[in-house]
C-alpha cells in the first residue's frame, strides 16, 4: 500500500486552490464582511480557508490598496469589516477576465484541443 506521503494529489490541489484564493476572497468582498463571516461565506461555497491564512491575506490586500476597512461594534465584540474599494473593484474585474481566459485555455488543453 502506498504511503500517504507518496500521493502528491493533496499538495498539488492545495497549490491549485492557493492560486485562486485572492480572486475568491475579492469576489466575496463586493459586500461588506468581517473576517469570520467571510470565511464562512467561502466555506459555504466550497472554498474553505484557514483563519490563519485569511486574516493576514486581508491585511495584505488592504496594504496593497484594494480593500477598505472599518471597525464596527454591533451585537458582539468589535469587528473589522472589509469591502472592495474602487481599485479593488477594478482589480477584481481584471482578475475575473484573466480567470475566464485561463479556464478557456485549460479546457482546451485538458480536452486535447490542438487548434
Amino acid at each position, binding site marked *: 500500500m502506498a504511503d500517504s506521503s507518496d500521493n502528491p494529489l493533496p499538495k498539488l490541489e492545495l497549490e491549485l486552490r492557493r492560486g485562486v484564493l485572492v480572486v475568491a476572497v475579492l469576489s466575496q468582498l463586493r459586500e461588506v464582511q468581517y473576517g469570520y463571516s467571510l470565511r464562512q461565506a467561502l466555506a459555504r461555497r466550497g472554498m474553505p480557508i484557514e*483563519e490563519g491564512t485569511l*486574516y493576514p491575506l486581508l*491585511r495584505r490586500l488592504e496594504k496593497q490598496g484594494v480593500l477598505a476597512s472599518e471597525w464596527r461594534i454591533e451585537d458582539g465584540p468589535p*469587528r473589522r469589516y472589509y469591502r472592495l474599494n474602487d481599485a479593488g473593484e477594478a482589480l477584481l474585474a481584471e482578475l475575473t477576465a484573466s480567470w475566464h481566459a485561463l479556464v478557456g485555455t485549460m479546457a482546451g488543453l485538458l480536452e486535447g484541443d490542438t487548434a
Partner: protein
Amino acid sequence: MNPNDVIRTYVAEVMRRLPGRERQEVGLELHGLLGEMLADRAQSAGTPADDAMVLAMLREFGTPAQVAERYHPAGAVVIPAMQTRSFALFAFGGVALQWALTLPRVFGGDQPLVAWWFSAGLGALWWPGLMVMSALVAALIRSHGWQPAWRPRMVDPERVNRPVMLFGLVWFVLGVALMVSLPWVAPMLPGVLPQVFAFDDGFLSRRAWPVLLLWGATFALQLSAYRQGRWSSLLRRLGMLSSLAWVALLLWWIAVGGMFQAKATDDGARGALGVVVLIVVIDLACRLYRERPSMRQLRVAG
C-alpha cells in the same frame, strides 16, 4: 483558568512578535476571531467552552510564533537554494581545515585542549561568520534589483588574452631578474639584510642552476602562446611537462634545504616554496581535468 484569559494570553504572545504599528489592530481582530471560533466549537459540541476546548483550538491554530509569522511579509533570501549545499560545504570545510591545522598542537602536547578551544578552536568560526556577512551583503545588493548580466563564456577556452598575458610576462621578467640578481644585490643591502638574504654557496653552485633552464623554458612557452594567440595542443602538453619539472625541482630544494645561510630565512623559503608547489599541483590537476575527452568534446559542441 478562564478560556477568555487563555485566548488573551495567546493573543498577547502573538502581538509581542508583530511590528509595533500593527500590534493593536491585529491583536483586537485576532481576539475577536478566536472568541468566535471558540463559541462555534462550543455550540457544535453542545457544551460550554472549557480549558481543554480552548487549548485544543489554539494548538490547531498554531503557535504564537507561527501565527505572527503569517503577518510578516516573506523575508529576503540570504542564501539562494542552489548555493545552500556549496555554502554549507565551504563553511564546514573551512572550519574543519583550520581545526586540522591547529589541533596537532594539542595532540602533540604543546597546547592544552581548553587553551586551544578558546583560541584557534573558537577563532576558526570567523570563517562561517565572514561567509554569512558576505551572503547578507550579496542579498542586500540583490534586493535592490542588481543582478549580474549573463554573458556567454569564451567559445575558445584556449584563446589567449594578450593584454593580460603581456602584463604577466613583464612581471615574470622583472621577478626573474630580481631573483637572479639577488646573490649580488643582497650584500649591498643595509643593516642585517645581507646576512638575512645571503645564499648558501653550495646551493648556488650545485642546485640553483636548473631554475634558469626552467625559467627560460616557461618564458619561451608563454611567449609562444602569446605570439600564436592561443594554447595549442602541443603547447598545453609542454606546459604540463614544465609544471611537473617545476614541482620536481622545488620539492628537491625543499627536501635538501640549505638555500640560505640564515636558518630562519631558509625555513621561510621552504614554507613559501611548499605553497608554490601546492598551487602548481592544483593548477596541473585542473589542466588535466580539462583535458578529459568529454570536456573537450563539449567545448567543441558549445
